């Protein structure tokens, strides 16, 4: 059973005891512990259940690659599922729960899957659950989903805050081990802007633990001293930024790198995590290497761990994972662990080295300590259920005849080390297979390339295959120097890697019975036999095998299982590992919090809300808003006992009978000025604008070059060389952009300037029979029908405001649009309300505006038009110039389908029973389509209840509509049924225009 050692523990502070709970039980640990080390110290070896078979799992690693020890942390708005216990810093009062088990970690119903495992090989679900059909959705699938899924979903919104930060660097260094520190010092000394990031809570990486075991020194100093010196030196460099608890998680095109800083891991912080968006000229990857498990039967029994992890727990955290630990290794690394354990006072009944005749300082040290070394030996199988009780040893070269059984309570395994090539590969760096070292390492000749086509990622230390601290130091320093100079990886000599025999299954000739118990992917329960099955069934591409078996698709993304899987597949296919190739590496290096990706863009900052100068008044007067782009426009202003629709009806009546006010500030206002402005206007608009008289207004249409309607609005000629274009709210930005695009990219020699004045002005529509009287009361400008006829405009001082007044109408009533500087908008609005009180002045919203324009038969961009509609479709052919030689869309409009007389065209529609037809309803056509659908011959574009006429009114686009007035058609109803309606003239209100011109 695992326990805390009486002494030792470089990382922990025995004077800082901490209390925490696991599955509700009170536990204790020390400052500096991880959750995993503290649990082990308490004898809690089993920390989770596997994904598929729900087998009990203990931690297998001591770091970010952990596939097993996943727990739920915290509660309520602070609950986090799937946290890796091995990298979770222990904090006072931490609450952790185990996952993927029911009812309890010790007893889990799901574990029945393990009993059934022989029926559930890789891909079993593709082969069954076929009948009866409905069972998949209702029985099988829910069962599968419930048994999968690991942690519980959070039940409440996130109570934490996150932020992002953008910065640039000459050199970004991922990993703060010896190589990373050395790289940072070199780059720093060269004066480069350096950012050094380390995912863990301390600098120095493995050297802290490993170097002393062999008496290795760095630059002649003890590792700890050198690391301290390095950190001190770097901290004095103003051009170097250092961060712990920060993983460089992704490398993208053009030197963009992503890093997640877990601020809260370092102690209380205003934000839980900070996402760094870094532009780096060069990136040094120094994330080290990942130890590989060995594939022997029972290698998933809790207590079987990576050798490096076993000694990290012992030396770093003062934790014994067992009293008697059998070490099995394919290389030198196992010796380090054996030595560390013996020095910590624990028993190592045997060190099984698959090699023969291994020599070197480590071997000698182990012999000197009297450790029993068995050469050419491996593990036939591990005994034990909830924990290890012993191992049966056998010859590695052979089928696995048991030579001896050794009692032990833990196993430390080392299958060699794989360089962490993830960041290198993410942005397109290629790998090369090193046969002698049995590893994929970065191919310096085929690096990820940046904007200039040169390699911008330089691997260093263990990430580049370095085996010794000395090599890590050298390669780190070299990479740092090159990076600072903007050098490329081709100029970087790969460090020496340790020779390593290829031991993919243990024993080499293990039979099926053993291979069915050799785990490759501990979390997803993928065994050697599963990969062999995939190969047998023809899933021979590495991607097929991965997807078929789910190997490497667990939350560790194959950090432990990939190489073993590839080797097994290669063996099954009779192909060498490089022929098999690797799967693609994708960001992130380790999972990053979705909240940190969203950053501060939550709540009010989620998206900008644009406000008009009168918005405060709308807020204060109960406006019911609708989003229009980023604006929020009042839909209506409901009063006590009114809903938004009733309010819209009242507002409509007020405009027809008295006078209404509409906040039209959101409508686009674009100035076009210059000697060639007239010519330009004639290209932008479908109708003629160059001949518009100064002081007059004209309604105009804008098409794209395909001939489809983009926008409409009233244009005013301000002066000889200046036009003011009103656009829809949605059009303000994109019509201005449209104009600039044509000016800059097609007619750049024309002398025209444009400016978007939309936000400079507040604009109020004053509409209704009392509109003129109201403006007269404000005083200062002559707005009489003589002085200001329909479609004219004037400038003056209205009630003391510098104002532009346009006599234009979107309602069919006498109507003025008053435009003043934005900062005076609220005052103007207030003045209009006060002066107009006894005239029944009524603010109205977008819905009343819609009803009014529909009664008058005016079209609305985005309702009657949808990007596939021509002016002719809307009976606006009169606004498409025949005279002009060219305008944007002229040629497009002549294409056969756009000119087709059979196209749907605009008409009014009135239901026979007077009820409101549903907007969007389809007009049912005769017969069926070739694909057997009911034919349609049009659709209802907009539909309202008209308070003016007391019945429903609608506009529709119907095939040859205008030629069919009086005809009765059927329109659809949501929820089935049809409705009869008759085609009518869309202009229902004041067809002669007396009121408009009055």
């Amino acid at each position, binding site marked *: 059973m695992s326990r805390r050692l009486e002494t030792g523990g470089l990382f922990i502070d025995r004077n800082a005891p901490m209390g925490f709970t696991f599955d509700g039980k009170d536990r204790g640990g020390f400052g500096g512990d991880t959750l995993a080390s503290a649990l082990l110290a308490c004898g809690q070896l089993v920390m989770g259940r596997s994904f598929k078979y729900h087998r009990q799992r203990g931690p297998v690693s001591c770091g970010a690659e952990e596939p097993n020890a996943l727990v739920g942390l915290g509660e309520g708005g602070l609950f*986090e*599922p*799937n946290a890796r216990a091995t990298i979770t810093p222990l904090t006072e009062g931490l609450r952790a729960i185990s996952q993927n088990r029911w009812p309890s970690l010790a007893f889990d119903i799901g574990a029945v899957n393990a009993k059934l495992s022989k029926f559930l*090989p890789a891909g079993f*679900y*593709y*082969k*069954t659950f*076929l009948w009866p*059909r409905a069972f*998949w959705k209702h029985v099988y*699938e829910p069962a599968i*989903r419930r048994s*999968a899924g*690991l*942690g519980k*979903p*959070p039940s409440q*919104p*996130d109570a*934490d805050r996150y932020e992002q930060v953008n910065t640039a660097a000459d050199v970004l260094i991922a990993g703060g081990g010896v190589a990373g520190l050395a790289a940072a010092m070199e780059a720093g000394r060269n004066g480069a802007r350096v950012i050094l990031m380390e995912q863990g809570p301390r600098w120095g990486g493995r050297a802290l633990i490993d170097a002393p075991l062999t008496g290795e020194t760095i630059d002649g100093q003890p590792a700890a001293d050198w690391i301290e010196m390095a950190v001190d030196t770097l901290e004095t460099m103003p051009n170097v930024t250092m961060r712990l608890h920060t993983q460089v998680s992704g490398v993208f*095109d053009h030197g963009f790198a*992503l890093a997640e800083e877990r601020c809260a891991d370092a102690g209380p912080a205003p934000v839980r995590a900070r996402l760094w968006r870094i532009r780096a000229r060069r990136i040094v990857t120094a994330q080290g290497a990942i130890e590989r498990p060995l594939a022997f039967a029972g290698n998933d029994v809790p207590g079987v761990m990576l050798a490096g992890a076993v000694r990290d727990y012992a030396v770093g955290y003062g934790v014994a994972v067992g009293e008697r630990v059998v070490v099995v290794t394919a290389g030198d690394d196992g010796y380090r662990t054996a030595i560390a354990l013996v020095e910590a006072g624990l028993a190592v009944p045997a060190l099984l080295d698959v090699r023969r005749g291994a020599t070197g300082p480590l071997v000698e040290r182990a012999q000197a300590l009297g450790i029993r070394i068995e050469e050419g030996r491996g593990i036939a199988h591990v005994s034990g259920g909830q924990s290890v009780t012993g191992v049966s040893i056998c010859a590695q070269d052979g089928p696995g005849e048991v030579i001896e059984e050794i009692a032990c309570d833990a196993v430390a395994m080392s299958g060699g080390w794989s360089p962490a090539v993830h960041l290198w590969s993410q942005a397109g760096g290629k790998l090369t297979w090193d046969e002698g070292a049995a590893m994929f390492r970065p191919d310096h000749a085929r690096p990820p390339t940046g904007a200039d086509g040169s390699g911008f990622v330089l691997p260093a230390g263990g990430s580049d295959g370095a085996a010794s601290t000395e090599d890590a130091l050298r390669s780190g320093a070299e990479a740092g120097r090159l990076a600072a100079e903007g050098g490329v990886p081709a100029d970087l000599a790969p460090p020496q890697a340790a020779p390593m025999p290829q031991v993919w299954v243990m024993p080499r000739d293990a039979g099926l019975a053993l291979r069915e118990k050799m785990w490759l992917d501990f979390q997803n329960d993928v065994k050697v036999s599963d990969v062999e*099955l995939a190969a047998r069934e*023809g*899933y021979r*591409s590495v991607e*097929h095998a991965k*997807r*078929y078996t789910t190997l490497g698709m667990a939350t560790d993304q194959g950090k432990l299982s990939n190489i073993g899987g590839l080797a097994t597949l290669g063996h099954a296919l009779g192909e060498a590992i490089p022929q098999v190739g690797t799967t693609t590496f994708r960001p*992130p290096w380790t*999972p*990053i*919090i*979705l909240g940190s990706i*969203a*950053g501060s863009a*939550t*709540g009010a900052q*989620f998206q900008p809300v644009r406000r008009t100068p009168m918005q405060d008044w709308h807020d204060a007067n109960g406006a019911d808003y*609708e*989003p*229009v782009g980023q604006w929020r426009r009042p839909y209506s202003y409901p009063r006590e006992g009114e809903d938004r629709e009733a309010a819209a009806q009242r507002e409509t009546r007020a405009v027809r009978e008295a006078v209404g006010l509409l906040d039209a500030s959101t409508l686009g206002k674009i100035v076009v000025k210059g000697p060639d402005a007239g010519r330009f206007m004639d290209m932008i608009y479908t109708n003629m604008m160059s001949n518009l008289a100064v002081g007059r207004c004209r309604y105009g249409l804008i098409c794209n070059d395909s001939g489809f309607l983009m926008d409409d609005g009233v244009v005013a000629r301000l002066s000889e060389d200046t036009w003011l274009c009103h656009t829809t709210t949605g059009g303000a930005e994109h019509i201005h952009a449209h104009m600039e695009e044509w000016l800059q990219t097609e007619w750049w020699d024309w002398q025209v300037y444009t400016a978007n004045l939309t936000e400079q002005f507040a604009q109020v529509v004053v509409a209704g029979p009392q509109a003129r009287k109201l403006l007269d009361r404000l005083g200062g400008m002559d707005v009489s029908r003589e002085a200001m006829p329909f479609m004219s405009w004037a400038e003056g001082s209205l009630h003391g405001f510098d104002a532009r007044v346009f006599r234009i109408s979107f309602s069919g009533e006498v109507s003025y649009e008053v435009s003043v500087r934005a900062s005076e908008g609220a005052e103007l609005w207030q003045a209009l309300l006060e002066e107009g009180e006894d005239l029944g002045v009524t603010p109205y919203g977008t819905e009343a505006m819609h009803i009014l324009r529909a009664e008058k038969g005016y079209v*609305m*961009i*985005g309702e009657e038009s949808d*990007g596939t509609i021509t002016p002719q479709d809307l009976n606006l052919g009169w606004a498409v110039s025949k005279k002009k030689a060219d305008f944007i869309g002229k040629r497009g409009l002549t294409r056969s*389908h756009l000119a087709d007389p059979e196209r749907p065209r605009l008409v009014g529609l009135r239901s026979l029973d007077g009820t409101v037809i549903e*907007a*969007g*309803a*389809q007009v049912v056509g005769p017969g069926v389509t070739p*694909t057997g*659908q*009911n034919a*349609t011959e049009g*659709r209802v574009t907009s539909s309202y209840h008209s308070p003016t006429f007391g019945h429903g009114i609608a506009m529709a686009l119907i095939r040859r509509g205008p030629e069919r007035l009086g005809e009765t058609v059927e329109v*659809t109803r*949501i929820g*089935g049924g049809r409705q009869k309606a008759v085609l009518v003239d869309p202009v229902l209100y004041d067809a002669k225009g007396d009121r408009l011109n009055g």
Partner: protein
Amino acid sequence: MQGARQRPPGRRIGKGPGLQRYSVFALARQARRHHLGWQRAWRDAQPKRAYDVVIVGAGGHGLATAYYLGKNHGITNVAILEKGWLGGGNTGRNTTIIRSNYLQDASAALYEKSRSLYETLSQELNYNVMYSPRGVMMLAQTEGEVRGYRRTAHANSLQGVATEFIGPERVKQLCPIIETKGPRYPVLGALWQPRGGTARHDAVAWGYARACSDMGMDIIQRCEVTGISSENGHVTGVETTRGSIATRKLALVTAGHSSVLAEMAGFRLPIESLPLQALVSEPIKPCMDVVVMANTVHGYMSQSDKGEMVIGGGTDGYNAYTQRGSFHHIEETVRALVETFPIISRLKMLRQWGGIVDMTGDRSPILSTTPVGGIFVNCGWGTGGFKAIPGSGWAMADLLARGAPGPIAGPFGLERFREGRMIDESVAAGVAH
């Protein structure tokens, strides 16, 4: 056509001597033999010198095209050429959403045909593609979207597509983790297709591949087409990294690389290749039993059978063949979904990836003859190709067999771009005033 390869259409997969039938009983039998008795799902074929039909691209669309050529038209002397590994393109990279709630008649016909084929695909192929009709909802979060989706619901009612427009309460009931009262974009309703859902993307490709192989077709992987030869306006064959292959009928079904193949054949397509990205969270226990698409904020999400939240968003705006998109699109998507589903904020992104999608001038696909006789294209599926696989294969097989488009493919011909006859699905989104 070689008589020897003639076969009655519609033979049930795995009934013949050729293929082992999958079932729970077979599984039990194999369990006793440690699963040593399972045969290859498909043969790794060597290219022959000539075929009646050559299909470039062994993704879902190419394999489905081949399958229906055999099943519906009895044409089995077919090669499917794949540059990499089958199903390795967008078929294996998408977010697996299946729906047919389209506005335009032509689209609805195509996607509903496809969806209905998915209903029985597992049984037909004797391979569980895990079609899960859990329901797809498209949230309406602006008045404009309400109008657009109501319009679609009306259209669907005539197209025989079962959809309804539901209110916010029903939305909340169907998907409790949605924040329907969000301050910025409260959910005003949704277009709901109860028989929409998801399927296991790899299984669709593998199931079709297994069936094609069983019909005697040659699936040739790691075989890249390097040239297309033709004589007086008609195709004669293709050059590949594994030799020349003669054929009189060539189907280009290479989403992402369609323009590259068209270039070889000597014509241009109204297509741009754009990166599209997706991501998954770490797996959690089931908390979402429907597919939700939120177009105002540009994000969609569903939960896989493994428990991962599968998340997708919009494409990058520039051409690229890198299968790597730009991270800010991931940020926009995640931002939108955290706002819509607040509980996901503390989940972690496990993996992000990208694919290359072809975007056409009207965002609708192309199933068409081409300027070169005997060459047919199936492309332009944009971000929505997975859902179309069976229907696309069905219609494409029809086009190949008869040399002219049938009723489903008809509207999707290349000539529509000359005529201006766009099939534009984005129209439901228009908002102005």
